[in-house]
């Protein structure tokens, strides 16, 4: 993997004919925090890259023409895939947490099961915005602290929870995004969390 230069679709294993249900989980976090690495470590395909475009009314008014200026923004994101069984396939999206991306959240990620917020403790502030937006959208999430070798302080999970002002209900987990077993644990932590929430909802319904 990785060394092949061929981009033929035949390099990818297709889904089985019975595949019928696509599911999504989104990995968000600051630049270089390990989103693509995490997606790659658990994906059955080499992560693919794609983009969406957005046309937005610009801030300024075009003075000569007197018409509102529009700007076109392109946001790129990558994704991987996990076949859960013959019928269900989970897509994992690595999404940059920056501001312009959130304009497209509903168009791209409506109906997502939940999100993983990936944190580098040397740059914790990079994920504040993402956490704020997820809470705003009501998207359930877990926080995964990606441990980098050069991180001397190694804040504990409790310290990170405090720094991010995370409520007790938000699960936290340490990971090494490069390691498949570790990435898998992160996804399981998220889905466990979703399951607990769903169970609580069903029992009160």
């Amino acid at each position, binding site marked *: 993997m990785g060394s092949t230069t061929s981009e033929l*679709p035949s390099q990818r294993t*297709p*889904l*089985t*004919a019975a*595949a*019928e*249900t*696509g*599911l*999504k989980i989104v990995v968000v976090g600051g630049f270089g925090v390990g989103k693509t690495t995490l997606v790659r470590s*658990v994906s059955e395909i080499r992560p*693919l*890259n*794609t*983009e*969406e*475009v957005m*046309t937005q009314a610009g801030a300024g008014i075009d003075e000569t023409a007197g018409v509102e200026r*529009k700007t*076109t923004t*392109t946001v790129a994101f990558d*994704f991987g*895939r*996990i*076949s*859960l*069984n013959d019928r*269900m*396939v*989970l*897509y994992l*999206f690595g999404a940059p947490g920056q501001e312009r991306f959130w304009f497209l959240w509903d*168009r*791209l*990620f*409506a*109906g997502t*099961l939940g999100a993983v917020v990936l944190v580098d403790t040397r740059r914790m502030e990079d994920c504040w915005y993402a956490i704020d937006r997820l809470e705003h959208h009501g998207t359930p999430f877990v926080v995964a602290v990606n441990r980098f070798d050069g991180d001397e302080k190694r804040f504990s999970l409790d310290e990170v929870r405090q720094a991010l002002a995370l409520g007790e209900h938000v699960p936290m987990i340490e990971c090494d995004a490069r390691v*498949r077993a570790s990435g*898998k644990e992160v*996804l*399981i932590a998220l*889905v*466990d969390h*979703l*399951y607990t929430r*769903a*169970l609580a*909802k*069903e029992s009160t319904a």
Partner: protein
Amino acid sequence: MRKPVDLGDPDRLYMVTGGRSEADASLDLVTLIVSECEPSPGMQSEHVRILELCRHPTAVVEIAAELKLPITVVRILLGDLCALGKVSARHPRAAASVAGLPETALLQEVLHGLHNL
């Protein structure tokens, strides 16, 4: 001049979509698309690519990545093919259920799949 599809490479995308900008909003990123026929002579090349790719179920987002086109443009193309009956769409779970499964049962299946990774 503004083109109806105001995107990265306007001319190419204008051609690809026939100048329309209304994407089919019912097509989710993870809607699985399946070909219902083989490409026929004279079809536009993007349609041919899609029909070839979707001999096996293929998610909208994978089609976009393969064709190297923005999601919006792919939704437009797929909307056309759907309307012509040339492809069919397997939509993702509705808000809370798949085939009547409660949310917890769905999540249990997901967990099971992940544990087996």
